[in-house]
């Protein structure tokens, strides 16, 4: 019966869905700053950390289902995947970089690191997002519409930050 909803290849379906949602959540996290710059949406800032942690949680489930369900803990196969296939290298790198961000997403760690160092560390999210979209692009074999959409949204979100940064820099002090 569960095959009726998940289709003929349920493991592939689960893996793909978790991957999709990891990317959606990551882009939603990155959308908070541009959206909340508009005063009526300023309240969104409160949800940024939660969205970031959800991203990590989905990435973790995505990774675990790959290791446990798809590859069934075949470490040799997994190692070859990571070194042989650039989409896997990118995905694994993105996941590893997410770990320090998740680990420092609490008040105690922000306090311990200090605001400036914490912010510098959390700029890693830009690299993570680029790696995440590259992962999606490189695993697609044909029909690139979905990864193209993700890349366009990411380009917009990063472009907005670049323009914002340039504008602030040019304000005469």
């Amino acid at each position: 019966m569960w095959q009726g909803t998940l289709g003929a290849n349920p493991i592939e379906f689960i893996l793909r869905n978790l991957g999709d949602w990891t990317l959606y959540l990551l882009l939603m996290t990155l959308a908070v700053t541009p959206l909340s710059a508009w005063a009526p949406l300023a309240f969104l800032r409160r949800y940024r950390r939660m969205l970031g942690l959800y991203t990590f949680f989905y990435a973790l489930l995505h990774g675990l289902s790959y290791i446990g369900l798809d590859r069934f803990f075949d470490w040799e196969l997994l190692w070859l995947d990571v070194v042989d296939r650039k989409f896997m290298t990118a995905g694994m790198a993105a996941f590893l970089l997410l770990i320090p961000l998740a680990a420092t997403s609490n008040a105690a760690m922000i306090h311990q690191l200090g605001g400036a160092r914490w912010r510098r560390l959390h700029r890693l999210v830009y690299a993570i997002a680029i790696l995440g979209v590259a992962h999606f692009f490189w695993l697609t074999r044909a029909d690139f519409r979905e990864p193209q959409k993700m890349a366009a949204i990411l380009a917009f979100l990063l472009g907005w930050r670049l323009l914002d940064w340039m504008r602030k820099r040019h304000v005469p002090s």
Partner: protein
Amino acid sequence: KPLKAPRNADFSTSEELTKYDDVTGYCNFYELGSGKRHPTANAHWLKTEPWSVEIAGEVKQPGKLDLDQLLKPHDLQERVYRLRCVEGWSMVIPWIGFPLAELIKRVEPSSKAKFVAFETLMDPINLKGQQRPILDWPYQEGLRMDEAMNPLTLIAVGLYGEVLPNQNGAPLRLVVPWKYGFKSIKSIVRIHFQESQPRTSWNFHAPEEYGFYANVNPQVRHPRWSQATERRIGEFRRRKTLVFNGYGEQVAHLYTDMDLSANF
């Protein structure tokens, strides 16, 4: 529509069949959409009546055959084959069809015919997948003559005791069980005999990933998917992939003097 044919046990595996709903509900047929369930949902896009197949190139009997004319002289038989997709999954499917070799002998290729090229229907108005450049349409595949003449190579017109569903490549398709599934071209409208190796769609799209031969081979590393193992649809654990998809006894001799990692 039911279609009965006696099973040819010599050419059939006794492995458990993949469920009918999975065989007809989990397909790669990009003309009908690029998701696995799209071809089933969009099956009505494919118009199979009337249908004719053009036989062309280096043959003594070229011409256009309509489907009845093409099928009439051949006795249908059922063969249960393994199908291994390059994406790392596999199925066991009871096909109904006849050996491609019978058709080839009938049209009498000349001595210049070294390869056979196949083409899928081009109909971008109905086959909406062809409205976007996912692949260089129409879909093209090809075999070397000795591969095409191998007794395993089948022209299928049915499965599971019925006429081929549209999403599985109606009204006639190729089945080459020792090669990755994309070689088994669907909904054929043209068979061309030629001296040079034909251009094939996936090979043209990404030559470093999809070779012309595309024999199932767990030893050849693939840049996208590990080919060492596969998931049989309906099973949980992966199983080891067999060289030539387990058909080595019948086909290994075709490749004795070839480097299979260069000609992947």
